[in-house]
Each structure stands twice: as C-alpha cells, then as structure tokens.
C-alpha cells in the first residue's frame, strides 16, 4: 500500500517534470528537469522489481545523458556568441 502511494507520487512528479522540461524557456532548467525525470523513473523501476533496468536508467539516463546535454548546451552558447 505504501509502495503504491509512493509510486503514484513519483508518477505524478514525472509527469509534472516532463511538462516543465518541454515548456520551460530556459534550456538549463529543461535539461535538469529531464534528468530528474530519469532519476524518478529509475526509482519506479526499482519499485516494479526491475533492479537491472533501474541501474541502467540511473547511470545513463540521469547521469551521462544529462552531462552530455550540458556539454552540447555549452557548445551551442559559444556558437551563438561567435555569430552575434
């Protein structure tokens, strides 16, 4: 029962963060929101008895993907400065 409530809260949080990631004008906020979606998703996978998938989602989804997005964002900003 407790697990169901936690899962529902996480699911709602994921939906909210997903909307933030899509709608927010600031790219930094959008990237962080997307990363947190992955983090909550990995917790959900754990609650669904899939620890292998949870580890993959945590390591790659919320870790490496977020870092790569930030590197690319940094590069985009530089290119905009060059062309300004």
């Amino acid at each position, binding site marked *: 029962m407790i697990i169901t409530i936690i899962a529902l809260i996480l699911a709602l949080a994921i939906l909210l963060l997903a909307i933030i990631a899509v709608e927010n004008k600031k790219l930094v906020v959008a990237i962080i929101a997307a990363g947190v979606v992955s983090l909550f998703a990995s917790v959900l996978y754990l609650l669904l008895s899939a*620890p*292998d998938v*949870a*580890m*993959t989602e945590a*390591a*790659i989804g919320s*870790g*490496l993907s977020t*870092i*790569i997005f930030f*590197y*690319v964002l*940094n*590069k985009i900003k*530089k290119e905009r*400065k*060059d062309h300004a």
Partner: protein
Amino acid sequence: MLKKAFIFALLFVIAVMLFKSYRFAGPDQHLNEVATRYAEKGPQEVGAANLVTAVIVTYRGLDTLGEVTILFLAASIIGFVLKIRNDESTAYNPKIRKASEILATAATVITPLIFLFGIYVFINGHLTPGGGFQGGAILASALVLMLLANPVKKVNHRIISVVESISGFSFIILGILGLLLASGFLDNTIIGLGDFGELISAGAIPIIYIFIGLKVGSELSGIVSNLQETQKEEI
C-alpha cells in the same frame, strides 16, 4: 496554439486507452511460455544466479553483441564529427574557469570509489543486479567527475581506443569459441559452470560481462572526452 491543442488531445486519447487497458486487464497471473522456460531451465542450464544476466549474455547474446556494436557506431560518429573541428583549432583556451576547490578535492576522494563500484558492478553481474552496461556507464561517470574537476585535463584517447578494441575483439573471440567448444555462438559452457552462486560460476558469463563492461565504459568515456575537448576551442 492549434498544434498544442492537437498534442493535448492526442495525449488525452492515449491516457484513456491506457486507463481502460489497466482497469480491465491487471497484471499477468502467469508467466508466458518463454519466460517460464527461462525461469525453470535457466539456473541449471546457465548457472547464473542473476537470471536477467543469463538472458542478456547467453540466451540473447547475439542481441547484446548488436547493442555493443550500435554503441560503438555512435561513439565513432561523435568522435568523427567533433574531430574535424578540433583540427581547425587546437589552441588552449585560457578563458576556461577553474573548478571550485570543493569539487577538485572531493573528486580526488570519490573518483577511485566510483571506479571501484563500476568494476564491482560488472564483475558481479552474474550474481547480483547489474552487469556490463551498468558497470561501464558507472566507469564513464567516474571519468566525467575527473573532467569536471580538471577542465583542462586531456584524456589519452589511445588508451581508450586500445581498451575498446581489445575488449570488443575478445567478446567476439569468446563467441566463436562457443561455436567450436560448446553448442553455439556465445554459449557460456566453454568453461565449467562452477558452483551456483559463487563468484566463479556461470561459465564464461563473468568473462564476457567484464569485456562488455570495459568496452561500454571506454566508448562512453570516449564520447564524453570528445565533447569535453570541444569546450577548449577559442571563443
């Protein structure tokens, strides 16, 4: 405006469909035929305490080989695309901000622990949750932390390439050995199954997973280090 309305209408329809299927179906009461086969025969055939690993490395080993190949292609393409720009300008960018002292100090303590954890994850992949892909990603995370703490640090691409090549080649060699010495490509019984639940068990699975872990780790590290080097370009 019209586009947003369409998107929300589509989402609403999908939500209704999901709700209906959830309400009437509920979770499966029985495993399907394939899953039953894995669950019943897997432990004695493969000898892996972690059945997920048994499926990934042995039953669907060819699929895993394909996955590793796709990741290799992705890393290669990223390296190729970013490399061209680096040739134009390899000058050191003095405007890169130095990392904060807290990050630099913490990284020296935490990075070795993350490396150890990553290695633990893929060495124990046949016993506990985790494995080559998860362990490899964790290794790459350790590299990310090092790069964040030392922005001007240059990664030795040769080491990454050598580790990647050797582990990929070894993976395929083990697969071919399965054809020669056991009952099929990537069959894990080329080595005795050992005692169930021990570190040395499940035949060749731990060896294969170590190579997968090293390969995935080096490929992801290559992606990150290539991206990091583009930050050094002159503004």
